[in-house]
């Protein structure tokens, strides 16, 4: 199974910093995922520091400890108390799960998470652990087995307490209201991605608040356990020209979505497999060559300039609708991405009379792979051929 993770946050109205913090880490080798959503006391920069400290510390603790319970208990016992308000500095929800569906979840102070299977809410059993140092602190420990198609949703109390005190929702949105929003959306779009679902929930919360002004920081994190969407990008001709046919066939028979980044590479695949390339008639305006079409391949673009632009887009998160923007969408719509990078150089690119913006393919791909892994939590595999 693949764990699709998405989160969305909105600040409290008139604040300039997020008071909630979501952090997630995927371990490629073991398939383990650790995520923490922490809500800092109050709002603004103070809450931001408290929440981010709690979340990052907890992540490191869980990573180092074999047991999430021990790690969370340590944090719970040591979180300081606000002198004025006599309440904890921050609350958290943490999940430690793997691709086989084994999950341990700990909650301290945050609203109870949702577990959805076949559009129904499951109510798992939990163990209450009371803090040894602060008798008013309890954490809930869940040990659950997830199946394909299951979803887990974490939220901060900004969601469940939305519209608190208004005429329509005197007690706020509460868990029931959140369930209604989520199930309604899932009926509409059963395969919705975690990213889209979390954005939808936050948007709905914003809409029910009077004047659409959020009274508290609002965060949602979604986890969706499903089959991975696979994609392959072939860029650069293979080092050994005699292997061209092997790699072209290998690429073409790949089960999943396919993209080619590189004119020479596309020509090679077309030649070896006897396919036609049709360049898009929309003339390349601006800074990038346009896209092309090839039967059986989802996207064909120019190589190094497009990849360089792509790495910029991935970094900024603000793509334009050009070839690199299309390639970015292609990649973000996938979970497991394989790069097949040909090691052969095009001597013409290193002609000193050429402008300097041509980068070395290996370096660009390395940068893209790192961004996809770290920033967009994708599983990336780079193979040099």
């Amino acid at each position, binding site marked *: 199974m693949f764990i699709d993770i998405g989160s969305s946050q909105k600040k409290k109205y008139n604040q300039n910093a997020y008071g909630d913090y979501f952090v997630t880490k995927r371990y490629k080798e073991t398939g383990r995922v650790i995520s923490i959503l922490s809500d800092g006391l109050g709002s603004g920069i103070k809450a931001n520091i408290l929440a981010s400290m709690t979340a990052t510390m907890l992540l490191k603790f869980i990573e180092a400890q074999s047991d999430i319970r021990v790690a969370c208990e340590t944090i719970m016992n040591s979180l300081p108390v606000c002198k004025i308000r006599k309440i904890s500095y921050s609350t958290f929800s943490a999940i430690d799960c793997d691709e086989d569906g084994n999950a341990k979840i700990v909650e301290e102070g945050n609203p109870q998470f949702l577990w959805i299977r076949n559009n129904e809410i499951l109510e798992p059993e939990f163990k209450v652990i009371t803090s040894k140092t602060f008798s008013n602190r309890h954490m809930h420990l869940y040990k659950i087995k997830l199946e394909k198609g299951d979803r887990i949703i974490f939220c901060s109390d900004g969601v469940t307490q939305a519209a608190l005190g208004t005429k329509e929702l005197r007690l706020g949105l509460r868990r029931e209201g959140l369930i209604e929003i989520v199930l309604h959306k899932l009926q509409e779009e059963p395969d919705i991605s975690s990213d889209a679902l979390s954005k939808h929930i936050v948007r709905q919360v914003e809409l029910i608040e009077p004047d659409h002004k959020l009274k508290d920081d609002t965060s949602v994190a979604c986890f969706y356990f499903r089959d991975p969407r696979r994609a392959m990008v072939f860029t650069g001709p293979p080092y050994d020209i005699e292997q061209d046919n092997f790699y072209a066939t290998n690429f073409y028979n790949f089960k999943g979505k396919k993209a080619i980044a590189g004119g020479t590479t596309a020509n090679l695949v077309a030649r070896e497999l006897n396919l036609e390339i049709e360049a898009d008639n929309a003339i*390349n305006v601006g800074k990038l060559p346009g896209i092309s079409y090839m039967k059986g391949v989802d996207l064909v673009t120019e190589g190094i300039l497009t990849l360089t632009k792509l790495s910029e887009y991935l970094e900024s998160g603000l793509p334009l609708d050009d070839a690199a923007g299309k390639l970015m969408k292609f990649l973000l719509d996938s979970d497991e991405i394989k790069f097949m990078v040909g090691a052969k150089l095009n001597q013409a690119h290193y002609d000193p009379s050429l402008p300097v913006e041509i980068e070395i393919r290996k370096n660009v791909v390395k940068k893209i792979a790192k961004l996809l892994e770290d920033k967009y939590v994708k599983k990336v595999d780079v193979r040099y051929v």
Partner: protein
Amino acid sequence: MESIEVKICSGTTCFVMGSTYLNELYEIIPQLYGNKVVVKPSLCLGQCSSSDKHSKAPYVKIDDEYVSQATIEKVLEVLKKKVEHV
């Protein structure tokens, strides 16, 4: 009569060497020759890597003939000869 095909390379080398300046050809050629000549972009003509020491990008292909270090004037000139020859 078969139409003449003009392909403008938009591969990496040609692109950085200014093949976008040839974009005007997409307007000029139909105005001059109507549907006798078809002009379209090409992902890569593959000329830069196969040519000798210094590549002569940008390239334009007119039927089977390659125009290197192409400019609008150069392309139109070759094209004119082709059309008259036919």
